[in-house]
């Protein structure tokens, strides 16, 4: 068909095709179909973009859609211009398409590398699958770990920085008696009485610093019971989140065992007389005993239990029959009768086991005592067997007596072990032998333990004695050394001057002769004095006169009488306090003491401008003790010598007469009386005071 339009100078494209219907159809058809596709595709794309706003390269995608859209429009116009020559419009559409396509290319092509780098879906999928499997595995591990912790015997707690419980395992709930929900709201101080609420922050800091801590404390369960526990707490920081993970172990049993061991050791090593409260449980390992008891009961078929001397059970019952355990003993009356029966059975019988029908159910019972030394400490009881020849009727009647269910009683009675009395006697005899052996072994244990501790004590004492002996030996050595020296000295004088004596005689030097003779004589005198005093010193302590009541006032005046010659010679004045006490002492020795002290005082106070003034008296010291003293106004003693004056042969002034033994004798006498003696002086030229105490027995 030929359509001629005069509106424009252009010609429709159909003319180029000679309006050949197949050709026109081909072109127009193709363009229209293409346009439809080129429209539907962008519409789909817009819809897709609308639905998936998170599309990567969103803008490019939209541009593509627009580009395709305008391409489609181009095709549409290509078909249109077959019929209508609207070439300007078509041209504009084409131009638009050109622009859009260029823009698309410009923004797409540079981003090609980025697009290429995008993970392919396949890779992502495999990655995801891989991660999934990993996750699954990790999950399995996690489940295993969780399960292990949950089923742990020891409680485990996860605690936050504030001290709140985050997570616990089953054991924690079981131990403390709270439910999981309850626990997960609580804080540590709620069940650990040793953790005051304000202590927690400090504890957290400590834990953080150290990393892990182990300590003992106590935990209080819901019902209020306290248990001894050991806690191991660790600080954990995972990706910035901080936790305290703690495991707890109950150590009550361990502590109990420790206490038992201590008690057992104490009782084993203390003398039998003061065993006091030593128990069967101290002397034997209860687990071992239970095993023996159970085995014996099993082998022989009897029931068995070990009780204390009052009949109270120490071990768990072995092989108790239903009748006794669940019926008779469950009734008040029955139980009472059983205990009474048991107590009698165990009474100490050295010749053999006791055997009798139980006062309660009438079954045969036997028993023997366990004793250590002569102390009866436990009873081992067996029995609950039925001899066929017993009176069944009265036994059945017992059910009524104690108020038990008769039917149940009869049934249980049927189940009781049958055993002839003769057989039972054999079993009792065997028991007697075994118990005897146990007793014997326990005694041996004690004896051995005591022997060991005695030996230790003896060895300690021996060491002490050896030390004392060594001290005494060195003292003796020193003594001998000093004595030999002090005896040698006068000998040197004597022999030396004897030699000179010959010279003096030859030289007819009478003055020298006499002087030498007197030196010799004095030296020999000194030797004699020394020997006498040493002898005296050795006697003190060996031969003591009996103590008698002595009036010290009288005694002192007597002493003054004895040395009155010296006192007068030096013009000394001796003053005596009137209130000297009366004491129980060795009269002779204390007289010597005063003679010595006053004599010394006079000697050392002489040779000064002032005449010697001596005071004998008594005073009270800070502790209220009576202190006797002798004071002089003599040459005094340098402070660091005040201890040395009493030592043997320590003469502060060598020219003085006297052997150096006097004060040593005085000291020994005082010490033998149980007193103390010491010297006081303000220094050279300030006089001396000798103080001493004597054990006071005032009459």
């Amino acid at each position, binding site marked *: 068909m030929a359509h001629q339009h005069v509106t424009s100078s252009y010609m429709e494209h159909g003319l180029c095709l000679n309006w050949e219907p197949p050709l026109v159809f081909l072109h127009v058809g193709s363009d229209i179909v293409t346009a439809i596709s080129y429209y539907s595709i962008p519409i789909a794309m817009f819809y897709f973009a609308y639905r998936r706003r998170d599309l990567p390269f969103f803008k490019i995608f939209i541009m593509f859609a627009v580009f395709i859209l305008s391409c489609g429009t181009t095709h549409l116009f290509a078909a249109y211009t077959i019929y209508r020559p609207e070439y300007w419009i078509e041209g504009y559409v084409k131009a638009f398409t050109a622009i859009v396509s260029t823009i698309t290319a410009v923004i797409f092509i540079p981003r090609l590398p980025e697009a290429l780098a995008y993970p392919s879906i396949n890779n992502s999928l495999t990655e995801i699958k891989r991660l999934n499997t990993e996750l699954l595995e990790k999950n399995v591990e996690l489940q295993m770990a969780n399960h292990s912790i949950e089923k742990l015997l020891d409680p485990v707690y996860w605690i936050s920085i504030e001290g709140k419980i985050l997570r616990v395992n089953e054991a924690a709930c079981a131990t403390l008696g709270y439910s999981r929900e309850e626990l997960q709201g609580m804080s540590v101080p709620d069940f650990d009485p040793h953790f005051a609420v304000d202590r927690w922050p400090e504890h957290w800091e400590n834990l953080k610093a150290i990393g892990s801590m182990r300590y003992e404390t106590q935990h209080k369960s819901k019902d209020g019971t306290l248990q001894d526990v050991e806690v191991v707490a660790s600080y954990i920081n995972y990706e910035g989140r901080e936790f305290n993970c703690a495991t707890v172990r109950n150590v009550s049993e361990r502590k109990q065992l420790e206490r038992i061991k201590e008690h057992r050791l104490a009782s084993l090593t203390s003398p039998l007389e003061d065993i006091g409260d030593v128990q069967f449980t101290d002397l034997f390992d209860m687990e071992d005993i239970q095993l023996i008891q159970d085995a014996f009961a099993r082998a022989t078929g009897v029931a068995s239990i070990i009780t204390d001397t009052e009949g109270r059970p120490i071990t768990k019952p072995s092989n108790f029959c239903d009748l006794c355990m669940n019926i008779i003993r469950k009734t008040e009356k029955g139980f009472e009768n059983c205990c009474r029966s048991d107590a009698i059975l165990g009474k100490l019988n050295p010749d053999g086991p006791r055997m009798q029908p139980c006062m309660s159910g009438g079954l045969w019972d036997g028993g023997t005592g366990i004793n250590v030394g002569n102390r009866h400490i436990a009873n081992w009881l067996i029995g609950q067997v039925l001899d066929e020849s017993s009176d069944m009727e009265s036994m059945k009647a017992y059910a009524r007596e104690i108020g038990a269910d008769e039917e149940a009683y009869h049934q249980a009675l049927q189940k009781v072990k049958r055993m002839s009395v003769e057989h039972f006697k054999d079993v009792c005899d065997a028991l007697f032998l075994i118990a005897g052996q146990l007793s014997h072994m326990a005694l041996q244990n004690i004896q051995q333990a005591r022997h060991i501790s005695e030996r230790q004590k003896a060895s300690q004492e021996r060491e002490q004695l050896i030390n004392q002996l060594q001290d005494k030996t060195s003292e003796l050595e020193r003594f001998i*050394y000093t004595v030999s*020296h002090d005896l*040698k*000295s006068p*000998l*040197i*004088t004597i*022999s*030396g*001057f*004897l*030699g*000179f004596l010959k*010279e003096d005689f030859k030289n007819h030097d009478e003055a020298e002769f006499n002087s030498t003779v007197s*030196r010799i004589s004095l*030296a020999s005198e000194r030797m004699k004095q020394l020997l006498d005093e040493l002898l005296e010193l050795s006697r003190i302590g060996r031969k003591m006169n009996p103590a008698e009541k002595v009036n010290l006032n009288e005694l002192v005046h007597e002493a003054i009488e004895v040395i009155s010659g010296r006192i007068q010679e030096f013009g000394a004045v001796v003053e005596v306090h009137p209130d000297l006490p009366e004491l129980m002492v060795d009269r002779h020795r204390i007289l010597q003491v005063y003679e010595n002290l006053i004599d010394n005082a006079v000697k050392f106070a002489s040779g000064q401008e002032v005449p010697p003034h001596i005071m004998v008296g008594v005073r009270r010291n800070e502790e209220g003790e009576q202190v006797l003293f002798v004071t002089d106004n003599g040459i005094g003693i340098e402070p660091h010598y005040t201890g040395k004056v009493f030592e043997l042969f320590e*003469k*502060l*002034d*060598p*020219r003085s007469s006297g052997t150096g033994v006097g004060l040593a004798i005085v000291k020994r006498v005082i010490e033998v009386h149980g007193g103390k003696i010491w010297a006081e002086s303000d220094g050279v030229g300030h006089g001396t005071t000798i103080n001493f105490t004597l054990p006071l027995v005032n009459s």
Partner: protein
Amino acid sequence: MTTGDPLKILLVEDNPDHAELVIKGLRTNNVANRLVHIEDGESALDYVFQRGNFSDPVTSPRPDLILLDLRLPRVDGLEVLRVLKTNEDTKRIPVVVLTTSDAEMDVAKAYDYHANSYMVKPVSFEHFMELMKTLGCYWVVFNKRAE
């Protein structure tokens, strides 16, 4: 100081009889000497160091020889020895220990403190005289002293 000049001896001895024996012994054996007798350890030190009561060097000249007993009051002989032998000024003065003790311990200690000689007082007149003569001979005649 030449040999033959009287020896200035310091005798430190607490027993007056023993001191007398030494003095007489030296005299009898013609050992010329100027002897000073001091009776306790502290005074002996004062004398040698010329202090206290002995600060006048004319009356308390430095001794050429010291005879030292070990058992002394106030300051013990061994202590005197130690002090003398550790002091720069006095350590060259010969010190002869003259004592009754022959105990191993005392001998050892004396030599530890650098005594020049150790002599035990004999319990026999003859031996004592012998000792004095030898002492005089040795220390006056033969021994060379430090200046």
